[in-house]
């Protein structure tokens, strides 16, 4: 049990920060709630004006919910790391027996907690206000969440490594990453809509398999587990690569002395 204490410390730190700061607590559910409301009403409007009989709620609102979940996971990992950047806490943290694996595990557990809060709020709003039924997706909803969670973790860790490497100001490169990927992930449209080169990019993005599967289910088709297994494996590989990148950046920071003198505009 003693070996898990350092992980607990990282999680506890975030709990203390959330408890003591409404500015940190509010974004956990406020922005996702606004997103669900906005897209909920858009889908209602689309259902009323189109004569195709297509129900946009499970297609669009479900997609927004899943994409927001992925974004929350990624931002959950990176913002837990940013807390150390903002508090200039690197020297205190990295001059302890805390290992990199414990530190990253702590960040991921923190992210699970915060993203699950957002997910619950979204589920409650989407089902109660807009009638989104998750029975539509059946049991496939859980593998969808797993793929998005793993990919969110990998991008979150990659974002942390990038900020450690390039300096605190580069955090502004991290926030828009999900928006940058969304056209390729086919969140709102089938991948067949995309030009060939964009489809090639999509094929290496695990969320693309989730949203293609989701649309197939809504259209009444059956989903093969194989693409989702491939998406899961791909996301797992990305986690390993992201961890490897973080470790390599950390060792670079040790060699250059970057951790000890990490400041607002460090670039080396």
């Amino acid at each position, binding site marked *: 049990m*003693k070996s898990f*204490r*350092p992980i*607990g*410390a990282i999680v*506890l*730190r975030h709990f*203390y*920060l959330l408890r*003591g*700061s409404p500015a940190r607590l509010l974004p956990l559910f406020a922005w996702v709630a606004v997103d669900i409301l906005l897209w909920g009403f858009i889908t209602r409007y689309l259902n009323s004006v189109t004569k195709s009989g297509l129900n946009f709620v499970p297609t669009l609102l479900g997609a927004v919910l899943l994409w927001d979940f992925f974004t929350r996971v990624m931002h959950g990992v990176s913002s837990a790391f940013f*807390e150390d950047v*903002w*508090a*200039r*806490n*690197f*020297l*205190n*943290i*990295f*001059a*302890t*027996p*805390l*290992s990199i694996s414990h530190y990253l595990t702590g960040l991921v557990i923190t992210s699970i907690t915060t993203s699950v809060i957002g997910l619950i709020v979204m589920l409650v709003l989407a089902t109660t206000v807009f009638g989104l039924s998750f029975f539509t997706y059946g049991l496939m909803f859980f593998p969808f969440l797993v793929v998005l969670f793993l990919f969110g973790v990998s991008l979150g860790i990659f974002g942390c490594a990038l900020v450690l490497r390039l300096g605190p100001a580069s955090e502004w490169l991290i926030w828009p990453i999900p928006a940058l990927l969304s056209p390729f992930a086919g969140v709102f449209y089938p991948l067949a809509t995309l030009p060939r080169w964009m489809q090639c990019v999509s094929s290496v993005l695990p969320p693309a398999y989730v949203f293609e599967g989701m649309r197939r289910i809504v259209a009444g088709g059956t989903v093969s587990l194989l693409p989702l297994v491939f998406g899961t494996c791909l996301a797992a590989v990305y986690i390993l690569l992201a961890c490897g990148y973080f470790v390599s950046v950390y*060792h670079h920071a*040790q*060699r*250059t*002395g970057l*951790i*000890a003198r990490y400041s607002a505009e460090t670039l080396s």
Partner: protein
Amino acid sequence: MSDVLSITGLRKEFGHTVAVDGISFQVGRNEIVGLLGPNGAGKTTTINMILGVIQPSSGGICVEGLDLAAHRGRALERTNFAAVYSPLPGNLTVTQNLRIFGLIYGVDDLSERIEELLKQFDLVAFRNEKCGVLSSGEQTRAALAKAMLNRPHLLLLDEPTASLDPSVARDIRSRIRSHAVHGAGGVLWTSHNMYEVQDVCDRVLFLSHGKILLQGNPKTLPSEHGKATLEELFITVAREPLKLEGTGE
């Protein structure tokens, strides 16, 4: 007297700049060693290498016989530090910070230990205050309480009393002295306050341009080099290090 810290041929280059140039020294058990030198002499780089946040270009660091490069976690479990440039996160309270670092260092009976330290460093009244709103002296005391959490066998202090008033500074010095004398460890201490160094340190090392120029007893070292005070000796090291080179080994 077994060594808690053993440094051998420690060197650090940043590009073409040599920050620490092959230094070797030991800190014994129950010993307080002062690491002195002008700004840019390599003191903080040395401390950061001992803390594992800067990787040496060459040389070895052993904490109680554990090679830092090979056994980082175990070596740092028995080490701790306080530095004037590394305050505790200002967005957490004193108790929260102590709890978090206590968990990271794997401190047993953590709640009792925190209470003990809050009393010892006169922080009881500030226990629920965020560290960021404390005065610089209170922040220093909080950082020192964190540094004592795991009852470190090797305590590294980088100008620990720089922002304290003379009365609190004396009190802190005596606590650290007592930690060194009655505890199981040693202390490596940097300071620009020569009075403090003379009062507290058993031995001092003068660093200039990354090299150890002189070492010895801070009470007798000035006279051995024809100086009246430690401060005078310090100024000579800072301004005319070549005069002293080769005389200290």
